[in-house]
């Protein structure tokens, strides 16, 4: 079948379809929803679902085809492919930007995750959003998101990456505020957008920095001479960037902090849970928030030039990991707990990037996409069954009523806690081992403690939601039901992935082939990952077993406490009231930002910038002044236009005289 396909379509052409199909879906559904609302009709669900889910699935199938094609290359060749530029987007004397896609090991992994997990979540949404008014609009946004995300991971230049980066930000904003009739939800959307702008400013400055540095050198004249943002070109000329690598990397990292919710810009992600739960799963857990990780992994050749920047990345990641984990301990909203766990897990990925273990970061990114999507969708299933209730104190004993959700959720929790043999075990272990092996003992210790906390709060969630006695009224208990098959199927599928997803990266110390690292070594280079790994097998096994026991004991502890002895934590909270309040209120970070940044800015702009400068000076004299001046001139000009021909001729003659005078004298 492949062969017949290739006879007619080259892989390079096929590749564009991956990106184009979701865009087509977004356009069709967008127009459809507009037209339907104009004629006050309900959009047909089956048509919307067919387009909205069919095209992403098709896109996934094409990604698989390309994956199969590329790994079919003969030995020794890297499985990479660059589509020729679709067209030249910007051509000026000293800057060229082409529109091209780049397929290599890294982007293949990302594309498979994005389209695969994305398709599953689209299918899940059919059930979850089935009763919603804005069904077509929802799928249109979701497809648009997929388009931008694919552009982000496939674009062959920093500019295309940035286009995707901003595009997913837009879709995130639209979907967080999907139920915009509710002002708090609309405000959450705005918050996400504004916090991301801060990061994006850094990102843009980083890009300008690269451009300024590269364009100030005379690069050898080739056809790519002015393609300053192309990854290949940056990589090839990265020596020029050596002296300014630290500022560039830090600026770009600021962008990553915004998008991937790291300290100090993480505050938007918990609020972003206001969106529909599948959106939280797709955008705010599995894919978009990992864009920062992808960006740094993609620019690994830049980051290795600056040890300082790497240190910063590692420390920010580690601190975020443990910081968010502590907040997760006390939250009572099921989605908020998961949101903080996402922040914490992203912290682990940055930790891995910072210590140079790029492939471990991507590995964790992949397994995290599986189990975190699973957890969010499970939470969605619970919320769906409970009629919108999100407070875990009102759950309990749900495993009786919804076994599929409960047991897949347990699998997800085990995976995120790093329990053997679930997916998270291998990826988290890889991160901790690389940190330890790289000599960063204090970072390792933070990560190690954080892993224990993760296990604790995840099984707290499991215990309070699915085990113990039901905490709700009788009537409500009877209404609880298992979710429809389209949702259950997705949960099971992701459950399987959360179990086996980690097996592609079983380390050599455990007798595995470490395939994932070898696969990515084409992008990240061998020496960063594998230097001196062979001698440390014994140490690796010991460390792994220790951290496994550490997580396991927390997991058991938490599930026992919260399933059977619910009064204990309350007593503990009373004893350590200050600490509890501090953590429960998320360290008052939101309030702190509000006090230090938001309110002074608002006051300043209302009192000074708006009140005096804008309203008085600019409006009165500038805008209205210019307007009045124009109207005055207009009166003068139209006053001459009397309609009397003789007068026209008079002006005509004056004109003739002036021209004659000008030319002849």
């Amino acid at each position, binding site marked *: 079948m492949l062969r017949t396909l290739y006879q007619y379509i080259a892989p390079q052409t096929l590749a564009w379809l991956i990106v184009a199909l979701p865009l087509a879906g977004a356009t069709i559904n967008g127009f459809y929803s507009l037209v339907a609302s104009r004629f006050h009709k309900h959009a047909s669900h089956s048509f919307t679902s067919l387009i909205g889910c069919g095209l992403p699935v098709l896109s996934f199938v094409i990604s698989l085809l390309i994956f199969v094609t590329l790994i079919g290359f003969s030995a020794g060749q890297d499985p990479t492919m660059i589509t020729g530029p679709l067209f030249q987007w910007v051509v000026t004397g000293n800057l060229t930007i082409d529109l091209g896609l780049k397929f290599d090991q890294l982007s293949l992994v990302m594309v498979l995750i994005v389209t695969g997990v994305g398709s599953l979540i689209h299918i899940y949404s059919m059930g979850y959003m089935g009763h919603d008014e804005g069904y077509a609009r929802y799928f249109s946004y979701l497809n648009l998101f997929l388009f931008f995300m694919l552009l982000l991971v496939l674009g062959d230049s920093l500019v295309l990456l940035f286009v995707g980066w901003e595009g997913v930000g837009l879709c995130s904003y639209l979907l967080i505020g999907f139920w915009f009739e509710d002002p708090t939800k609309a405000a959450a959307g705005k918050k996400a957008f504004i916090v991301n702008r801060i990061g994006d400013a850094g990102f843009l400055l980083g890009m300008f920095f690269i451009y300024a540095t590269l364009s100030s050198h005379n690069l050898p004249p080739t056809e790519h001479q002015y393609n300053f943002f192309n990854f290949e070109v940056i990589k090839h000329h990265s020596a020029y960037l050596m002296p300014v690598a630290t500022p560039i990397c830090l600026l770009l990292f600021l962008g990553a902090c915004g998008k991937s919710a790291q300290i100090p810009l993480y505050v938007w992600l918990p609020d972003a849970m206001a969106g529909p739960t599948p959106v939280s799963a797709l955008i705010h857990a599995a894919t978009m928030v990992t864009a920062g990780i992808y960006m740094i992994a993609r620019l690994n050749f830049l980051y290795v030039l600056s040890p300082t920047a790497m240190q910063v990345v590692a420390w920010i990641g580690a601190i975020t990991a443990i910081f968010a984990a502590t907040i997760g301990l006390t939250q009572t909203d099921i989605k908020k707990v998961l949101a903080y766990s996402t922040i914490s897990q992203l912290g682990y990925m940055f930790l891995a990037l910072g210590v140079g273990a790029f492939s471990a970061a991507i590995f964790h990114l992949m397994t995290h996409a599986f189990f975190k999507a699973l957890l969010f969708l499970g939470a969605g299933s619970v919320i769906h069954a409970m009629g919108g209730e999100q407070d875990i104190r009102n759950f309990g004993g749900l495993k009786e009523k919804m076994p599929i959700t409960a047991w897949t959720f347990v699998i997800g929790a085990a995976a995120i806690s790093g329990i053997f043999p679930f997916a998270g075990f291998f990826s988290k272990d890889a991160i901790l081992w690389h940190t330890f092996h790289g000599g960063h003992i204090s970072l390792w210790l933070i990560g190690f403690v954080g892993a224990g906390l993760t296990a604790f709060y995840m099984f707290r969630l499991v215990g309070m939601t699915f085990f113990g006695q039901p905490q709700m009224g009788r009537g409500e208990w009877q209404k609880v039901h298992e979710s429809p098959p389209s949702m259950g199927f997705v949960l099971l599928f992701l459950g399987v992935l959360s179990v086996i997803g980690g097996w592609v990266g079983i380390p050599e110390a455990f007798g595995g082939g470490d395939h994932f690292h070898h696969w990515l070594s084409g992008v990240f280079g061998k020496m960063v990952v594998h230097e001196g790994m062979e001698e440390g097998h014994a140490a690796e096994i010991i460390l792994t077993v220790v951290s496994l026991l550490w997580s396991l004991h927390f997991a058991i502890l938490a599930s026992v406490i919260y399933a059977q002895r619910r009064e204990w934590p309350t007593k503990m909270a009373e004893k350590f009231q200050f600490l509890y309040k501090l953590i429960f209120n998320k360290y008052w970070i939101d309030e702190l930002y509000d006090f230090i940044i938001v309110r002074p800015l608002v006051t300043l702009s209302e009192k000074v910038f708006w009140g005096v400068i804008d309203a008085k000076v600019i409006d009165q004299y500038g805008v209205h002044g210019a307007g009045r001046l*124009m*109207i005055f*001139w*207009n009166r003068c*000009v*139209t006053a*001459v*236009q009397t*309609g009397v*021909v003789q*007068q*026209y*001729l008079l*002006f*005509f003659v*004056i*004109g*003739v005289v002036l*021209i*004659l005078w*000008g*030319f*002849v004298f």
Partner: protein
Amino acid sequence: MMQELLKIDWLVFLRQTLPLLLPLGGGGFLLLVGPFFKRSHRFNFIFSIAIALLALFFAWQEWLGATNQTVNLLLFDRFTYLFAILFLIALILTLLLSYSYLESFGLVRPEYYALLLFAVFGMMCMVAGHDLMVVFLGLEVMSVSVYVLAGFQRSNVLSVEAALKYFLVGAFASSFLLMGIAFIYGATGTTDLIVLHQKGLGMLAGETRVYALVGLSLLAVGLGFKIALVPFHFWAADVYHGAPVIVTTFMATAVKAAGFGAILRVVWALFQWEPLLFANMIWVASVLTMTIGNIAALTQKNLKRMLAYSSIAHAGYAILPLVAFSKQGASVTSSISFYMLAYILMTVGAFAVLIALSEKEEKCTIQDLSGLGTRKPFLAFSMTLFLLSLTGIPPTLGFFGKYYLFLQAVQAGYIWLAVIGVINSVISVYYYLGPVVAMYFSKETADQKVGPTYWSPQAVLVVIWFTFLGVSLFGLFPSNLLDLIQTSVSSWLVAGK
């Protein structure tokens, strides 16, 4: 003389002149046969469209195989055919707009079509002629036809007034033009543009130089009148306003393009007499024209009148790059030609929307447009596109047109001139967006709601679609179009130099 005539390959000559002869013959045919078919408006319409399409086809064929031949005072190069194509496109679009308009306003008369065809013949002569006399003759053929067309709606006082004013001022201007040609002939002994270009100022000395410069000034007056440069612009507002809107469309597009075609030919021949002085005159005229046009347009409530002033302003933009003619003649010429095409498409589009709204009476005030966004979304959207394009906002064709114009000035060092142009564009935003605001943000009045809402003749919709696609697609991918125009220009300017 006889021998010279015999040397010409008459078959080739016939082929080369077909784009000119077809409108001429077609117009004559309509006048001769028209009385017998007086009832059949449809025949006249289809016949003129067929003539125009045929001429367009031959013009395109000739463009492909143009050889820069000069035959008997006519110059057949790609530039000629490029402008012929422009005129014919404007003609076809005007014809499509006219059919339903004439029917519903009771103006069905075959002369209308004949006059349009004659006018287009005149325009082609203006661009093809390499002798000032031919240019003049072409200009007169065109003008006389358009005078009559402007007064075509005899029952309307405004229309008659427009025709009379246009005629009076036009006759006045033509006398200057002819006088200018006479002075130039007196000073140099020739009216042949190619000879004038080749000899330059070298043949002028002493008193003859003064005569030549007087001739040049008077010539500039005559041609400046045609494209409504300040201070020869007063007629434009009254005439555009008073004439039937289909004729206004034709005047604002084809007639203006013809004026520019002739100006480019003449400037090429004569600018070198006083390059510096010439550039100074150009920038003064350009700045005055665009500023006064824009400022006068600010408070117009009638879109016909507003577009009249806007067309004055656009003439100001379009002559702006001529300051750089001595340095980069070819690129200046192609930028102006490109702009003419852009201007034709977007102006015809804007007028077409107005025509689509005018069923029994012309609906051209801003108030008539209010609430159009909900009544007729496509018309409102395309009108918005045309207005944005006229403003020069990317990614429309108008943006690139203006960009190439200002680019010429910047490359020649006239950065401040480009800045003035941009400031003028900013001023124009105000009046171009006024109708947009009315269409989308004001409520329709009671009688607009009651009145017939879905009256839009097919042919007019075709025009709107065509211009809509042209303005948006070429706005996204302008380079092919620019290549085409540069090719047309380079065959003339390189060969000439």
